């Protein structure tokens, strides 16, 4: 039967009939969900508080100099975290430089160009990469990638780009470059899977409009990618978060040296790797406190990177509300 105006049966104002009794189910529902939500926040806050408490002796002893100090000396009981901050930033930077073009390119291929059957198959294999344990990547990096770097890539880099300080030194295979490549392979699935979802959720009208206006397929793809930028940035941030914190794979291939070097062929260390290496054997209050302070610095760094990325996404979205969400 038609009526004068439309009513939706499930409008927001329709509620189940309130039961007479002390507690309403909806209130229980709300309270439980709020508690669970706050529990997550509470755990995060607890981590920060415990790290800060554990790091207190080191913060008192070194202050700001901890972040710029270059000497990590357990015998002299003097600690500076700059080599590890440097190592973390360099390896994550290399990983992003390699993973983002490959990941976004792969996702564009899978979402726009590949026939559905191939697309699903390749996507499955890429997502399989994400489920490989990181220690396996570490072993692969040490026994497969390092010899190849030592005999093929690094000598080539030294021969052709050796005038840059980035590629000076002896090719031993293990080092910052090795760690960066391993990290890149580990985060490519994250970038690809999420970017592919973003691209698939883009409205087809944009693509079709570009083609109707005479754009080539490549140009239409460029339009879609441009509109999907906020979502893809979100994927990159997630990948960067993983790269910053990756421990076992990096520990096995980075060479574990607490000296800062401009060369990508040199060994280095990251914040996560130094904690993994030294925490169990650390004796001495200041030593332990310094390691906990490194954990705190890593936490804060991840927070800053995520916040910056959020701001970047908001800026990229601007006033456009019709594009893929950055949530």
């Amino acid at each position: 039967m038609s009526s004068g105006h439309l009513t939706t049966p499930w409008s927001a104002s329709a509620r189940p009939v309130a039961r007479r009794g002390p507690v309403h189910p909806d209130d229980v529902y709300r309270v439980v969900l709020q508690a669970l939500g706050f529990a997550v926040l509470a755990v995060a806050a607890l981590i920060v508080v415990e790290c800060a408490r554990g790091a207190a002796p080191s913060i008192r002893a070194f202050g700001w100099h901890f972040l710029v100090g270059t000497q990590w000396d357990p015998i002299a009981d003097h600690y500076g975290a700059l080599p590890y901050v440097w190592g973390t930033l360099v390896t994550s930077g290399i990983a992003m430089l390699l993973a983002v073009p490959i990941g976004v390119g792969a996702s564009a291929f899978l979402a726009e160009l590949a026939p559905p059957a191939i697309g699903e198959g390749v996507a499955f294999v890429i997502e399989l990469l994400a489920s490989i344990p990181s220690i396996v990547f570490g072993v692969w990096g040490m026994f497969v990638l390092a010899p190849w770097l030592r005999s093929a890539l690094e000598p080539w880099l030294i021969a052709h780009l050796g005038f840059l300080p980035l590629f000076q030194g002896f090719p031993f295979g293990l080092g910052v470059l090795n760690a960066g490549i391993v990290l890149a392979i580990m985060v490519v699935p994250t970038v690809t899977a999420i970017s592919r979802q973003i691209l698939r959720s883009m409205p087809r009208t944009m693509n079709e409009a570009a083609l109707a206006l005479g754009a080539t397929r490549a140009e239409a793809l460029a339009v879609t990618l441009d509109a999907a930028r906020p979502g893809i940035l979100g994927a990159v941030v997630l990948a960067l978060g993983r790269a910053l914190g990756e421990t076992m794979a990096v520990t096995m291939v980075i060479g574990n040296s607490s000296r800062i070097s401009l060369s990508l062929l040199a060994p280095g260390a990251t914040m996560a790797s130094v904690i993994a290496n030294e925490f169990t054997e650390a004796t001495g209050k200041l030593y332990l406190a310094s390691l906990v302070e490194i954990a705190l610095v890593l936490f804060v760094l991840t927070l800053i990177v995520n916040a910056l990325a959020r701001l970047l996404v908001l800026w990229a979205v601007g006033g456009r509300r019709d594009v893929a969400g950055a949530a």
Partner: protein
Amino acid sequence: MPSTKSFARLAATLAALLVVAGAAGAQTLTGAGATFPYPLYSKWFDAYHEKKGVEINYQAIGSGAGIQQVKAGTVDFGASDAALSDAQLKDMPRRVLHIPTVAGAVVLAYDLPGFNGTLHLTPELVAGIYLGKITSWNDRRIVAANPGVSLPAAPILAVHRSDGSGTTNIFTSYLAAVSTAWKELVGAGTSVSWPSGVGGKGNDGVSGVVKQTPGAIGYVELAYARQNQLPIALVRNRAGQYVEPSLASTVAAVNGAAAQLAKDVRAPIVNSASPDAWPIAGLTFLLVYQDTKDATRARQLADFLDWAIHDGQEYAEALEYARLPDAVVRVNEATLKLLSSGGRRLVAVKG
């Protein structure tokens, strides 16, 4: 709502269970610490359980963590490759005794493709390599120590431990003993600031890097080098002899320091003057409180320690650990006589 009576019955049953569990718990001792002697300790705990029925639970979490657990009182004994310093001993709530169980040798494994001899190294060479002063295999100083063999012109990669370890402690103690430059610049300890080279995690990490990288040299426990069939360097000891690292030369190193060990069992045994001694050796220790409140646990621990330093030594050589020479066993027996519970000395059980 359960009645008060049934609640009381439930509480009584739980209490009874706890008492029984508590009594049964006296049959299990706990320990934590070093990973180096873990294969041997694991064998010991099995054998001792079969013999005496006492179960011993050991967590190989590392010497440093073991020391922390002893300090916190959560374990009956700790295991450490490095003896506690005077400062660390003062930090402990009560007096801690050191009981060396076995000795280990730290060796220099290398990978030099094309080199068909056995590498001879002097203490100065070892220190120079790890200080980063000697960077090439055909440096004239290395050539001088290895006459008649040709060394390749490859750069040296000095591999060290990236994690804190007793092996590092023994090796850096040796370097500090033979090189004043090392002593001033770096020092000795389970974790140091290395002037050069790369780090591998664990003995297996270092062996892995050495095996994979031509031109690498690294320090590992003798057992690892043997199992991975890595070429091992001969090192000249204080008496001027180029000694091969073996269980026999390790025992010689311990014997060479017997007099010092009798005075303080923590005395380092590196760089021994004895002619057959391997210069880079060290003892591994069990750490126990002299006084344990619980008499049953104290007695069980004392029994186990007595078994370990006598019967337990039979298992050492098969697993590539050097057994304690008689002199050190005597020192340990004297230490065990100091164990007490609640202030009263335990009678040492003859094993």
